[in-house]
C-alpha cells in the first residue's frame, strides 16, 4: 500500500516538472519570420568568391578543389590556354552530391570558394541544384572573407585569369533570366572567342 502512495506522489512530482515547463518561454523559433544567426564558420552552400576590388572571380581553375572533393561534386573545365595558363571555362557545383565537408575550401590556395552560412536554397526541381559559375558567384558576392591570395599571387596578377573573369563578370544580369545550364553553355563560346 505504501508503495502505491509513494508512486502516486512520484506521479504528482512528474506532473509538477512538466507543469513547471508550461510557464517557460519556448526555445524554438518561428522560422521564416525569426531566423537563427548562423555562426561565422557555418558550412552551408558553397559559393565562389569575387575579388574585393574589381569584383572578378578569384578562381584560377587550378582544379585543387575538384581533386579534394570526396564526392566529386565539383566539375571544372579549365584547359590550358596558349600561355600555359588555365582558363576557367566551366565551374559547376552539384549540390545533390555535395556533402558540405569543407575540404574544397581548405584545399583552395586562392580564396576562391567558401562554405557560407547561407542555406535557403531548397528547390522543387532537382536540376536547379546544379549551380553554374554565375549563380555561384552571384550568391557569393556579399560574402566577406579573409583574402589569403595576395601573398602568393600579388607579384604576377595572372593575366588570363583576369580576362576570363571579366567576361564572366559581365554575365550576372543575363544569368538571371537564362536557365543555369544554358548560361553555362553560353559562357563557352564567348570565352573561347575572346581568348
Amino acid at each position: 500500500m505504501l508503495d502505491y502512495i509513494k508512486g502516486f506522489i512520484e506521479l504528482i512530482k512528474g506532473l509538477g516538472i512538466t507543469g513547471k515547463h508550461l510557464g517557460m518561454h519556448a526555445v524554438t523559433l518561428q522560422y521564416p519570420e525569426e531566423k537563427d544567426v548562423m555562426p561565422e564558420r557555418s558550412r552551408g552552400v558553397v559559393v565562389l568568391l569575387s575579388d574585393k576590388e574589381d569584383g572578378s572571380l578569384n578562381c584560377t581553375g587550378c582544379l585543387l578543389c575538384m581533386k579534394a572533393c570526396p564526392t566529386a561534386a565539383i566539375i571544372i573545365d579549365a584547359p590550358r590556354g596558349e600561355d600555359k595558363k588555365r582558363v576557367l571555362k566551366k565551374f559547376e557545383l552539384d549540390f545533390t552530391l555535395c556533402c558540405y565537408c569543407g575540404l574544397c575550401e581548405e584545399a583552395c590556395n586562392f580564396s576562391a570558394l567558401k562554405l557560407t552560412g547561407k542555406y535557403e536554397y531548397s528547390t522543387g526541381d532537382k536540376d536547379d541544384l546544379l549551380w553554374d559559375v554565375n549563380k555561384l558567384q552571384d550568391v557569393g558576392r556579399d560574402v566577406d572573407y579573409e583574402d589569403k591570395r595576395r601573398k602568393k599571387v600579388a607579384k604576377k596578377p595572372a593575366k588570363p585569369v583576369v580576362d576570363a573573369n571579366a567576361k564572366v563578370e559581365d554575365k550576372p544580369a543575363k544569368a538571371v533570366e537564362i536557365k543555369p545550364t544554358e548560361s553555362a553553355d553560353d559562357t563557352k563560346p564567348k570565352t573561347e572567342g575572346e581568348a
Partner: protein
Amino acid sequence: MIAIGITVALTELLGSFGLSGGLLSVITYTILAAGTFGLLSVLALFLVWWERKVAGHMQQRFGPMRNGWHGWYQTLMDGLKLLQKEDILVATRDKVVFFWAPVMCCIAAFAAYIVIPFGDGLIVADLNIGVLYIMAITTFTVIALLMAGWGSNNKYALLGGMRSAAQVVSYEVPMVASILVVVLYAGSLSTVDIVNSQSGNFLNWNIFRLPFGPIAFITFLIAAVAEANRTPFDLAEAEQELVAGFNIEYSGMKFAMFFLAEFINLFTVSAITVILFLGGWHGFAFIPTFVWFFMKTFAIVFLLIMVRWTYPRMRVDQLMEFAWKVLVPITFLNIIVAAIFKHFGWYWEL
C-alpha cells in the same frame, strides 16, 4: 429546479406554433441533437487545438501558430485538409465493418450527451437511468474499435482493437464500482439528481462528502482515462508499438471521425467526473451554471492533457493487472465502506 429545462422550454415554444404530439417531440429532439452536435464539434476542435498548445508549451515549443492568433483555427484547417484527402482503402478489408467502424465510434461518443447536464436545466433528457445509460453507450466505442481492428485486415490494427477491447471491458468494472458509491449516496441514477444532491457548499461535492471520496474520485479518473484511450493507457493506438493501432489503415475523413470521437470522449469522461464528483454545475456567486460546469470540466481536461504528455505508457499485461489486482479491490472495498458509513449515517449533509 429554478430554471425550466431547455427541453421543456423548447417544447413549449414549438407548441405555441401549434405543433403537438409525436411531431412536436421529433422536431424538439432534432433541434436539440443538432445543437448538441454543433456544440460538441466546436468543442472537439477547441480541445484538439488546446491539447496541442498545452503539449507545445510543456515541451517549450509553440504548438500551432500559423492560422489565426496562436493558430486558433488550425484544427479547422486540419479538418478541411482531411476532408479533401483521398480515402485510401485496403483491398482486403472487410467492407461493411471497415466502413461502419468510425461511424459507430462517433455515434457512441455523441450519444452520451443526451444525459449530460451542461448547466441547470441544460440537458436533453433527464433519464432516470442516466448514469447507467452513459456507461452502456460509451462502451459502444470498444465495439467500434474492435470493428476497426478487424475490418482493416491488418495485424497491427487487430492487436490494437483486441487490446482496446480487453482494456475497456476491464476498466468498466472499477469505473462502475466507483460510480456506485456516488449512486449510493445520491439515491438515484439520474445525472440531474446526482448533481442536485451535491448542491450548496462545495464541501457537499461528492469528492469531499463521501467517505474516502478522493479515493473513489481517483479510481474513477484512472478508469476514465483508460476508457478514453489516452496515455498512459493508450494501448489501442500505441504509436511506438503498434504504429497507430486500430486506425492504422484509416485515412481522410474516416480517420478524422476517429480523431473527433477521441476528443469528444475526452470531454465526456471529464464531464462525467465533474457531474459525479465535483458538483456538476454547482458553484457560487452569480456566475451562470453552465460556466461553472465548463470551468470544472476544462480543469479536468487540462489535468488529463498534462497526464498524457508526462507519463510513459503501461504494458498491456500490467494494465490488466492494475485493473484487476489494484483498482477492482480498492473500489469494491470502497463500496463496502461507503455502504457501512451510509447505513450508520456517518456523513454530513449540509
